[in-house]
């Protein structure tokens, strides 16, 4: 299950998906909108994707994780559009027979997502907004 969507992500759906009789461990990672970033009061994060390629890259991460570690099942769902404080922008769930693999694969997945998956986030903060990662000194887009 490798998907981007506008609806809130359902943690239970992912955990059910990776639940497996052969698994002794499930690791999940939930990325959430934090109310502050680099000294700014954050109001929300707004995610945009190149959706077809984003899902393809998420699946590629899953395939690579399955090659590196003995995992049973994996799911990654990323949310698009505005994500309010405390809400989930991404959830990763991995099951494995032994816990080592689930931990390693979920860690690997979030690091990879931040490197190669064509998803961008605009931070909406008190006083402006900025596309994260493209700052060059000053925020590029002021309200």
């Amino acid at each position: 299950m490798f998907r981007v969507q506008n609806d809130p992500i359902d943690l239970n759906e992912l955990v059910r998906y990776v639940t497996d009789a052969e698994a002794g461990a499930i690791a999940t990672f939930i990325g959430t909108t934090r109310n502050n970033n680099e000294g700014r009061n954050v109001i929300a994060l707004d995610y945009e994707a190149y959706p077809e390629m984003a899902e393809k890259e998420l699946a590629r991460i899953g395939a690579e994780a399955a090659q590196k570690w003995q995992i049973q099942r994996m799911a990654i769902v990323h949310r698009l559009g505005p994500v309010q404080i405390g809400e989930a922008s991404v959830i990763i769930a991995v099951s494995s027979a032994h816990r080592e693999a689930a931990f390693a694969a979920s860690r690997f997945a979030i690091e990879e997502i931040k490197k190669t998956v064509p998803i961008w986030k605009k931070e909406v903060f008190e006083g402006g907004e900025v596309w994260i990662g493209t700052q060059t000194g000053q925020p590029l887009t002021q309200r």
Partner: protein
Amino acid sequence: MKVRVKFFAILRERAGTGEVMQELSEGATVNELWQALQKAFPKLNVPGIRMLYAVNQNYVGANDTLHDGDEVVFIPPVSGGCPR
């Protein structure tokens, strides 16, 4: 030949559109397409930005040649996942 260019995030905002069809001479590279687009959309030039390139949803190099009907996306630094 013609390629389809999609813009996302900061590039979409700067181009003022999400998609454009661009006429190119045979054998043009990704980099040549970018030069052409910068003439058509001067605001696309974001100083200091590190960019990746995708053709038909696969990452490619700046000097790869394009073909008629390709879907090309210029990918500004990605920032999905979670806050730092």
